């Protein structure tokens, strides 16, 4: 009986602990182990090379290209796709009529699977039959080959995010609606108009949520994989390849599991570093 009491809590938590250990901690430890070897699938683990995989990665041009691309994705996302949901939420909060309709439309991007988005946007960007060139020609910006253009491809990949919508809008909206009504009432009594309230009350009050969203966006973009994989497979000439896509390519194309895991370890390190820095910064900010 005494023994049983002691063991019971562990029975309840066992599935969680086991699954996390087996399906998260073990694979990540395995990743580190593999990255130290010239990994051989048939006779694992193969020759031990220490940090040799890491060192040789730094000498590959593709490795640096994929990092540069990933940071360009980050900048493009922050400029193009991060801000629209904030603006959309601020104005959606003001809307009384047709609110349900607008909200339903803003939800759509959440439920449209990526494969559909890719099929659709690949066609929109198509140089001959696509919508994009039809519009740019009409407004006098000329025609481009978009996804086949070394310089425009990354822009074309991220641009759909500019249309906004999605989860972010509703997170911001909930944050705005969570601001106590009295603050706005007091401001109105003081003669502050809505524009002023937006700048002085709404935005400062949701700045914490914006900071959190920023961290998640950065973490998400650093891992960007599905989008470049489906849209362009990293082309043309690796101009859209990301770090995560590189990991897949080392493993799948070159069968170089050592390089793949070494790269994934570096990526994880950078992500953790940026997360910690951002958390510290946002903490300092709120203080």
């Amino acid at each position, binding site marked *: 009986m005494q023994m049983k009491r002691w063991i019971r809590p562990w029975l309840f938590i066992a599935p969680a602990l086991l699954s996390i250990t087996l399906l998260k901690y073990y*694979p990540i430890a395995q990743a580190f182990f593999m990255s130290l070897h010239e990994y051989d699938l048939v006779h694992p683990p193969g020759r031990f090379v220490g940090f040799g995989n890491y060192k040789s990665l730094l000498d590959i041009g593709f490795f640096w290209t994929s990092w540069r691309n990933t940071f360009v994705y980050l900048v493009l996302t922050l400029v193009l796709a991060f801000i629209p949901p904030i603006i959309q939420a601020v104005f959606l909060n003001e809307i009384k009529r047709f609110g349900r309709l607008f909200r339903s439309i803003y939800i759509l991007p959440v439920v449209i699977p990526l*494969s559909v988005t890719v099929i659709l946007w690949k066609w929109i960007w198509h140089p001959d039959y696509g919508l994009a060139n039809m519009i740019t020609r009409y407004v006098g910006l000329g025609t481009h080959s978009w996804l086949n253009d070394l310089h425009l491809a990354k822009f074309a990949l991220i641009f759909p995010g500019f249309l906004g919508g999605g989860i972010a809008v*509703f997170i911001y909206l909930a944050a705005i609606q969570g601001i106590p009504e009295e603050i706005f009432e007091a401001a109105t009594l003081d003669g502050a108009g809505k524009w002023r309230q937006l700048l002085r009350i709404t935005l400062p009050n949701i700045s914490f949520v914006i900071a959190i969203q920023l961290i998640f966006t950065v973490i998400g973009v650093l891992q960007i994989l599905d989008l470049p994989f489906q849209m362009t497979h990293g082309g043309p000439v690796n101009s859209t390849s990301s770090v995560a896509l590189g990991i897949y390519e080392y493993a799948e194309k070159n069968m170089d599991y050592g390089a793949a895991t070494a790269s994934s370890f570096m990526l994880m390190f950078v992500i953790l570093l940026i997360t910690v820095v951002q958390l510290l910064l946002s903490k300092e900010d709120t203080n």
Partner: protein
Amino acid sequence: MRAVFKRIVSGNKMFTAVAYVLTAVWCALLLVPLLFLFSSSMKDDLQIYEAPPKFLPSPPKSIGIVLDYTQVAAQGEAALKEALWQDSTLALYSTVYEINKSGVFQVDFYGTVGDRVIYKSSSGKSDLQMNMTYLIYDKAQVNRANLLEKYKQSVDQVGYRFDPQGLSASFDRSRLGDNELSGQIGDYLTDKYKVEGVYKGSIVRESYWFALKNFAGYWKLPKVLFAKDEMIARFSFLWFGANTLLVIAFAIAAQVTIDSLAAFALSRLFGRRMAKLLLLYILAATMIPFVAYMIPMYVMFQRWGLSDSYWGMLVPHLTAAGFFVYLYKGFFDKLPGELFEAARVDGASEMRVYFSILMRLSQPVTAVVAITTMLGVWNDFFWPFLIVKKAELWPLNVALYNLSLNANIKQNFLMGMAALSLIPLLIVVTVFSDNLRKGMVFSGIKG
């Protein structure tokens, strides 16, 4: 003047006006790509390659072809039927391929004896193309000899109505031959394809309804491409959807059970210090990004023999999600202690407490967990893509992607299949929009 302008621009009414205009414009922008998707799926394989693209394609046409069999009927019913089968096959396919003009979505074939219509068969263009490329003719050249080689299969596939006494089907005799295509059709039918019946003329009708004929073809495509996989051959897209649903159901069940059990132990059964330590162990795992361990996990799953099976897709969803454990724990922590005391006095076991008190009370949390899990699985692509290669296992996302790689599939088919897979979603969104939103906002704290 300037002051007045400034007051208007900076006024509250202006703010409201800007809010409405901007929201409306942005919503419209969001809808434009979707409308383009649906309009593209309503085009045929020629209209889709028109440059510049048109949002509203010219109205789809159906071409009716009338051949007369008064002479053949004299040779007896068997010969008549044979002639009709052959001629209808020749007429349907030849029209799709000879009239190389966009906007033909349907071809109808009428066999007559005098005033009576004795035979009718009708098919959409996309259906006929499907038969031509995949189902029956295997990309053979369209000519008389090739078409007649397998006309029986085609007749079975297309279907027909035949009654020597006359059918109820009719066509507008006054418009027979009253179109620019009629002469051309007569020429190739009699000279090139040498039909037995006597060409009486053709009728061209225009209606946007014919565009819906396309969807019959889109629906058929997966069935045709994966004819060897019994389930896909039977259920087409629905099968991929069912695969996704299976993973969603499994993931939700796994997350709700595993996470809440762990949270219960952390909240009520462990000592404070131990609970803190274990929670840290669980939460720290959420910091590990998927891309960092996807390769070793892939290798591991292959070694365990889980690749190319449902388990390969399902097992990763057993991983307890730190955020959900945290959510449940936060909820359990807030429940009054008396609730548990009372249960304990009554002699209820921990299992009873968990099921009859905790799970019943924590329904709001469970709803959040379920919705978040559902959306996560719904958008999951890379892992199922890596782990299952067999078509019958593909979830919708992977299926659509793999189909989009097939160079034989015309773009209108791709757009059509994408549109088809969106339709159930659009219904879900309009019906459950509020619930979805609430669940999402919660999950958004996680990201």
